[in-house]
């Protein structure tokens, strides 16, 4: 275009603006108009985001109540009990009462009852009995007792029941132990399932709320054209993304406190590592998942499409990252891959710190994994991000 365009000088233009301000009178009479500082937008965005979350009852439920319920339920279901007393069925028959009599001499190690054989086998199949004892007899006169154990070698409690029952019955029949032994009970907090579970749940919760909290609200803003409205103002885009991710930090502290509090006060869990290290891990984990959430939501236009993407990203971590059970169960070949996942790194680091008191300096590898995920996903997200 060669047509001359009308330009004025900057100071002339701002001068006109100031003159207009004075002409308005109203603002001038209230004194010097308020001037916003560099971080005013960030502070307001952060505050607004936190208020929005507070006012959304679903958020409170999914972020706080749900993981607590999950931890509580699983903690109860898998609570440490003295190895349960094997439940043994004695098939009804002529010698059943003798066997029962022998079994009942040590009631603390065996729980036995007489049931008809068919019912006993059926109950065994359904897991109601760990072992079925079928008393028979041999010898010419049929007076010598001969027991048959029906057990399932694939069921640990069945194997245990067989050994226990044999022990009890042999002792009752007069066997003497050639070697004297004694035992001392020791069940320390730290080795129980709930101790394993709580750090894993914490990691998973940071992933869920980080990814949903950032990804979902971004797409929601985009769908409402609110992102577009924001970029139509002088707001710095980095302030907006920073506020969105750092609002997660405030929530993280609460999530962490609640879950660990539950572990400590209800399940008598012991925290061996430093709280500062745990907080740092929580912050790093939140940052990594906020970045991943940002990346997942960087272009999606609809809530429906981002939901699918989120699940796709999180699914492998739910399965492989050792939330509910150790990933050692997977073939050793894939362990390096599993350890490269951010949730695995976070869970391993949380467990090492909380349960073993390992210092962060000893976990450079895990920290590096988390930092790498954070940096790479933020950088990719920023170059991909669609504001309109």
């Amino acid at each position, binding site marked *: 275009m060669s047509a001359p*365009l009308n*330009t004025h000088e900057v100071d002339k*233009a701002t001068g006109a603006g100031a003159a207009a301000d004075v002409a308005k009178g109203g*603002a001038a009479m209230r004194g010097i108009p308020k001037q916003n500082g560099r971080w005013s937008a960030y502070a307001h965005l952060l505050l607004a985001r936190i208020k929005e979350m507070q006012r959304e009852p679903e958020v409170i439920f999914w972020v706080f109540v749900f993981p607590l319920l999950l931890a509580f339920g699983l903690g109860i279901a898998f609570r440490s009990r003295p190895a349960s007393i094997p439940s043994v069925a004695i098939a009804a028959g002529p010698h059943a009462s003798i066997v029962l009599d022998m079994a009942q001499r040590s009631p603390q190690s065996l729980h036995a009852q007489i049931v008809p054989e068919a019912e006993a086998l059926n109950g065994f199949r359904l897991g109601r009995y760990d072992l079925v004892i079928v008393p028979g007899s041999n010898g010419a006169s049929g007076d010598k007792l001969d027991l048959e154990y029906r057990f399932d070698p694939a069921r640990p409690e069945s194997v245990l029941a067989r050994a226990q029952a044999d022990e009890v019955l042999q002792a009752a029949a007069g066997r003497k132990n050639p070697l004297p032994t004694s035992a001392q009970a020791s069940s320390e907090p730290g080795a129980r399932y709930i101790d394993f579970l709580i750090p894993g749940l914490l990691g998973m919760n940071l992933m869920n709320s980080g990814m949903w909290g950032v990804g979902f609200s971004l797409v929601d803003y985009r769908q409402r054209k609110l992102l577009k409205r924001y970029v*139509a*103002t002088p707001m710095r885009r980095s302030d907006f993304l920073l506020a969105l991710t750092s609002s997660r930090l405030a929530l993280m502290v609460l999530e962490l406190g609640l879950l660990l509090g539950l572990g400590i006060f209800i399940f008598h869990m012991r925290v061996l590592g430093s709280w500062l290290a745990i907080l740092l891990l929580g912050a790093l984990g939140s940052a990594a998942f906020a970045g991943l959430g940002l990346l997942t939501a960087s272009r999606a236009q609809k809530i429906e499409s981002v939901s699918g993407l989120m699940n796709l990203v999180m699914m492998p971590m739910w399965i492989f990252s050792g939330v509910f059970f150790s990933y050692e169960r997977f073939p050793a070949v894939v362990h390096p891959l599993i350890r490269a996942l951010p949730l695995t790194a976070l869970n391993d680091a949380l467990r090492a710190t909380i349960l073993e008191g390992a210092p962060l300096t000893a976990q450079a590898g895990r920290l590096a994994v988390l930092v790498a995920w954070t940096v790479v996903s933020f950088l990719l997200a920023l170059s991909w991000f669609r504001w309109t």
Partner: protein
Amino acid sequence: MNLAIECRGLRKTYDRKVEALRGLDLEIREGECFGLLGPNGAGKTTAIEILEGLLKPTSGEVRILGYSWQTHSRELREWLGISLQETRLSEKLTVRETIELFASFYRRPKPAEEVLAELELTEKSNSWVGKLSGGQRQRLAVATALVANPRILFLDEPTTGLDPQSRRQLWEIIREFQRRGGTVLLTTHYMDEAERLCDRLAIIDYGQVIAEGTPAELIDRLGGQHVVEFAVSGNSHGSAKDRALAHDVWRALPGVEAVHGDDGFICLTVRQPHVTIPALLDAVSHQGAKLLHLTTRQASLEDVFVRLTGRHLREES
């Protein structure tokens, strides 16, 4: 007079196929209220979003207050107040929180209290946005633009879907902004809104300006200020030739500047209805036809629009 907004040869092609703008030129002066009119799909929103710096034109040049978006976007953002079409603000924030949030983005915003009072939202200042009525929401959207203390206000269909009272309330707010020296660019598809509010208008269709001027000038350009609208028996059933003949008859009546058919009626644009109507009645009785309908009214922008685009402004395109 300085130009607030200026664009030359603006083109925008989406996906290399859809041409939303085909060489749009506009000059909007400081202190005026300028309206962009056009049917849906004419390119109004594309045009306003390019001027707002939210979309990049495929080609062409934009100057806002003398500056270009490439070099002075940060300054320009401080000077513009924008209300987009259909922004849904966060529902769980209160009115005051929303205004304060937007205020925090600007170096020298207006005090939130002042904006609340100006837009009559003080009473609602502690209500959640989700609980507001359509009119209140629209006023809040304008409030988020005004809190910037802007020099130019961009409003994309600010009154669409509002009841008459809310529309008038918004008009008053826009006039007040203008009285203080602000420049307004608005898009609308309400003719009455454009006529009452705008100092100058541009009608755009198929991505180009097809007419520009003050509302009075545009109406004047029709060639007459009155419209005589009538229907006669049989005139909608005849052959094309009959209709063309009839058209010539009406055109020949004294004082008729233009003839066009509209939805079964015939519209004559005339300068002096008292001269044309007796002649029209004579012509009808001469044909042995019966007059089924006759009204006369002041020509409006709507007539200009229909003449220029062959469509009504609010028809879906």
